[in-house]
């Protein structure tokens, strides 16, 4: 380890190769940004959500519509019975309101039809019920006032951005390291390198160092863009974020090494990487919280490297907590860094 020239040259070569491949630039930089912007635009809309409700056409329909439209969080349309049921099935409306029997009193007997599996159906049921009762002059014994969350740091987009950073660290680590090394093995560059006195650890370490080099550009771009487009603020310290990001990158570079340590073809390594990436995208809280999964799988989910990384990122990014409060997550990440790297070094196939 006294002579680090080879480590430096290997890292330089790796960085150059990445900079000279336009498709790598796309996947590393452009893709996560497009993903963040796309999802951000879809979910960052600040206007409150309105529930769509269908009223089945009939003699009572105008009066019911009037009562429902008194609330600004309901949007009402009058449809025939058949159209209304179809619209509910397609998810275009959250609830169908129809009169029961032929009573003269518009609000005496009303049926609200909802799909209980959908959250907006349950919400709509409550809103419609309330609106109809109020329209009929029902008393309100308790005065309730509502304060809506509009604080920065508590919106979906605030929660999403650290997840996108974690997702990006995972995919660029696995692909950048795993795919490149497999390609080098496939076209016998690795064989040529091991025919020299090159310290083999330097080659593997250089892959991780080259990843670090790209982080210096990739993460600040995402952070600044999220701030500029969606007003997403970094609540914690830059130092804490840097530590988590570097540890995350090291972790997934190490995993990338492990994934490609024996594989002979780029096709095989692509399959392996997808097998790793797909479950973690779903389970580890990139786009939605893993708390929705059953309790029995929660310990397993918590042990996944991407879960640990995302949780640590959100601690720092959203909650502004100091690093030591994310100790468990950092320990899980560290274990996922050291163990794969050591195993990869031992079982690595050089030719």
């Amino acid at each position, binding site marked *: 380890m006294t*002579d680090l*020239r*080879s480590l*430096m*040259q*290997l890292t*330089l*070569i790796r960085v*150059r*190769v990445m900079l*000279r*491949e336009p498709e790598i630039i796309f996947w590393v930089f452009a893709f996560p940004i497009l993903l963040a912007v796309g999802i951000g635009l879809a979910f960052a809309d600040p206007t409150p959500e309105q529930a769509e409700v269908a009223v089945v056409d009939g003699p009572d329909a105008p009066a019911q519509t009037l009562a429902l439209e008194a609330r600004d969080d309901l949007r009402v349309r009058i449809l025939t019975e058949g159209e209304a049921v179809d619209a509910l099935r397609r998810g275009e409306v959250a609830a169908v309101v129809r009169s029961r029997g032929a009573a003269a009193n518009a609000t005496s007997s009303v049926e609200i039809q909802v799909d209980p599996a959908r959250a907006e159906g349950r919400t709509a049921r409550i809103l419609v019920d309330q609106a109809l009762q109020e329209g009929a002059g029902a008393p309100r014994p308790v005065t309730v006032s509502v304060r809506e969350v509009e604080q920065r740091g508590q919106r979906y987009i605030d929660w999403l951005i650290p997840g996108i950073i974690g997702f990006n660290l995972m995919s660029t680590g696995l692909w950048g390291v795993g795919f490149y090394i497999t390609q*080098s093995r496939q*076209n*016998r*560059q690795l*064989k*040529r390198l*091991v*025919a*020299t*006195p*090159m310290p083999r650890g330097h080659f593997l370490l250089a892959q991780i160092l080259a990843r670090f080099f790209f982080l210096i550009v990739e993460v600040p771009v995402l952070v600044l863009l999220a701030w500029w487009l969606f007003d997403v603020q970094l609540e914690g310290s830059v130092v804490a974020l840097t530590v988590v990001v570097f540890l995350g990158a090291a972790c997934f570079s190490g995993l990338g090494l492990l994934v490609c340590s024996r594989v002979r073809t780029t096709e095989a390594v692509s399959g392996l990487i997808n097998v790793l990436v797909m479950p973690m995208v779903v389970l580890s809280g990139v786009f939605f919280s893993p708390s929705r999964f059953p309790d029995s799988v929660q310990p397993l989910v918590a042990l996944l490297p991407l879960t640990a990384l995302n949780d640590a990122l959100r601690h720092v990014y959203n909650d502004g907590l100091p690093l030591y409060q994310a100790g468990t997550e950092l320990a899980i990440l560290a274990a996922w860094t050291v163990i794969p790297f050591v195993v990869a070094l031992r079982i690595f196939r050089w*030719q």
Partner: protein
Amino acid sequence: MGNPIVASPLRSSTEPPRPGDDQSRRPGDGEVWHSGDGEPPGPGGAEPAILVRGLHKRYGDVHAVQGLDLEVRRGECYGLLGPNGAGKTTTVEVLEGLTRADDGEVRVLGMTWGQQGKALRRRLGIQLQETRFTEKVRVDETLRLFRSFYPSGPSVEELLDHVQLQEKRRSYVRDLSGGQRQRLSVACALAGNPELLFLDEPTTGLDPQSRRALWEIVESFREAGGTILLTTHFMDEAERLADRVGIMDRGRILEEGSPAELIRGLGGAHVIEFEPSNPVPEEELASLPGVQMVRSRGDTRLLTCRELHRTLPALVTRMAERGGELTSLHTHRATLDDVFLARTGRQLRDD
């Protein structure tokens, strides 16, 4: 042959250059020393550069190397000549420490692979049969990388100069011609100022001009006192570069000696190749004046003779007497190809 071995071929020369005169640097008759004779007669009694005893290597059902013995003296260029699939590359890769032998003793520069592998690597220059460098890396960047693996050696500038790639220094590897790539490959092999250079089929697929350029680089290394192990299936390459040639087929060395000596072993300097319209018995041809050896290849007969002016008229006269026709008639100076044909009944190359 009396000069001391100097281990820095690029910097010092132990022999004056002898341009254009290939024969003069070959050892004379009495100096030719065959492997298996016991003590090497190398200068100063130094251990041979390469010593192989009873080497075996199998790949599944294929017995690629079958009990090969080989001894390469310091300061000589040894050529392994044989057709594709003869086991040349397997042998060389065992010597290079890239493939493990199944059985047999292998010593390179007096050392064995295993514990001494790391120290040994620094003293070797290796050119693999098919080296693909990273396409979007420049020539000088590639050389700087390889140079960084060795504690000492020529500078990148000297290497570029040596293989005449100064003008291509800033080109991407993907923009180099086949000959330029091969010169780059040799330059990488020379980056550590090796004592022993392995060249595996260095000119396969190159045009005549590129081949000559590469030969000159190899010759200058050899003239500066370096040892070379070369594999080739070109008899002209072996004749030009090698001090001694081992004719290899089916995992064994069949015959060994200087090119001149091997050709002399055929008994004549000339080969008459002809195709009679009526078959002529080989015994009848053998009785012609000056004929040393008669061989057949299909309908074609090959006569080895010492003096064309005696044998050729006699052959033409005999054919006229028999009343047959000569459908073709060629003569050429005997080559290593003829030696190979005499030993195996096949030609080195089929084209």
